[in-house]
């Protein structure tokens, strides 16, 4: 065997090593991106439920809406530290209640005539929009990560370390029709 076979063999090994190392790097970065995005979503959800509680006790919604909203928003607050599969249905329920309670643009327009309520509604709107965005960005990162992890080399060489397989965050987060962002 000639010496250059060794060189070629060595180069191939090196290239393979580079491929593995850079894939591990990509995964590591995506895992961190997912972590950050989860944090961001968490804080936006928290913000949303806080404002929802405020709105429910402000005495501006009808009594039925106020009651249901107070309850679901409170549940959402308590679920903050729960695992994803417990939290998602609770946050979705809050979304559904908001969608139901604020379904009429004209009525919301009336509520806005009071400046304090208007501020509260603006804040709620902003929070809902941010939940929507954070969730989308999280799911984008999860998709990108799953595409790479769906590769035997990643599995065989344990390139993902001990990080569990990420999961997309699937929940209802539609903007209620009564809020202006919905039309945009």
């Amino acid at each position, binding site marked *: 065997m000639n010496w250059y076979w060794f060189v070629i063999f060595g180069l191939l090994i090196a290239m393979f090593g580079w491929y*593995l*190392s*850079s894939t*591990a*790097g*990509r995964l*590591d*970065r*995506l895992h961190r*991106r997912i972590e*950050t*995005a989860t*944090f*961001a*979503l968490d*804080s*936006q959800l928290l913000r949303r439920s806080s404002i929802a509680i405020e709105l429910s006790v402000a005495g501006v919604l009808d009594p039925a809406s106020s009651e249901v909203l107070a309850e679901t928003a409170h549940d959402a607050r308590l679920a903050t530290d729960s695992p994803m599969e417990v939290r998602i249905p609770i946050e979705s329920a809050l979304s559904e209640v908001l969608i139901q309670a604020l379904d009429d643009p004209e009525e919301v327009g009336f509520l806005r005539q009071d400046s304090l309520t208007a501020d509260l509604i*603006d*804040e709620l709107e*902003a929070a809902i*929009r*941010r939940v929507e*965005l*954070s969730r*989308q*960005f999280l*799911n*984008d*990162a999860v*998709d*990108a990560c799953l*595409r790479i992890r769906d590769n035997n080399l990643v599995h065989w*060489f*344990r*390139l993902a*370390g001990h990080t569990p397989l990420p999961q997309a965050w699937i929940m209802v987060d539609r903007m209620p029709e009564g809020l202006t962002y919905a039309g*945009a």
Partner: protein
Amino acid sequence: MSSEPLRIGMVCPYAWDAPGGVRSHVADLAEELRARGHYVNILAPVDDPSLIAKGEVTNGGKSIAIPYNGSVARLNFGLRATRQVRKWIQEHDFDLVHVHEPMAPGLSLLTLWVADGPIVSTWHSSNPRSRVLASLNRVVQTAMEKVSGRIAVSEDARRTLVSHLGGDAVLIPNGVRVKAFQSTTRHPLVSMSVPSILFLGRLDESRKGLDVFLAALPQVIEAVPDVQVFIAGPGDVEDIRKNLDPQVDQNITFLGRISDEEKVQVLGSVDIYVAPNTGGESFGIVLIEAMAAGTAVLASDLPAFSRVLDGGVAGAMFVNEDSDDLAQQAVALLLDPQRRASLVAAGSQRVMRFDWDHVVDDVLAVYDSVTISGERVHEDLRGQIIGRLSTGIPGLR
């Protein structure tokens, strides 16, 4: 609705000295963000450093003209540019970096390569057949994976990015400062008593559609003999004149390259603004500017234009590249002041949706959704051999 002021780094891949859609988007966005109390520093290639505002724009090096996406773009890249980006990231301690047109082979792509942390990116153009995208090599893909929040300025730009990268993007249209286009000064050359029509854009770039417009003019002039035709934009006027029928030439006034100020004036003074663009547009910013200026718009029926014009409610449309149809529509509009007035009214309504105030709210919502306290933009050492050795070993972090 951000409570704390953010330190934002903004990257424009195209030369800061050359006018262009992305460049003015970046400048306007930065100005609006600063008006709301945020710190913004822009990194862009600069050809003449004496013209830039120190402290607001960082010189990313000299640009060169290269063909990109069916046009000629002034971009820069290379080792020195990379070092410049690295230095910019190190020195500024940004909360967030916002990269525009990340696929363009320039400072934007380099920033994605060099930086790590909260990164937002805006896709401006739609290029269905990009070779870079088609082969999407590993390095580019790795860079794209660092973007935490993706924005597309139009449905077409969004489709381009989704089809090549998967996932999704938030749609935030381009912003226009509506007030700035409501000029009250008339352009001195535009007569009030005769109907007038305007073309705006590079004369020598075929996708701007000047040829389609010129081919329609004989019919228009035959039906409306006193029509004033204005053609504004850089390019060789003589080259165009020598192929023109002298009869047609009589009605045309060439304005050459015009300043922003003159653009506002002329848009506000003419009766119709024509946008005969044949393709490659993902968003018709000039259409919005014309609507803001209170001018009736007649545009080719590109999907991007149709969306801006709300399917023809806020402006008239003709079949793309069909000069006969353009001529018929133009004549109909020129002879019907009432129809023009109703288009202008619908246009002014439509345009508020694209006002910067509204757009910046959305952009800030995206910023809030990707930043968490304590996380900042830092240099990505994996881009370097030594960095890879120190941080890239599987399972060692």
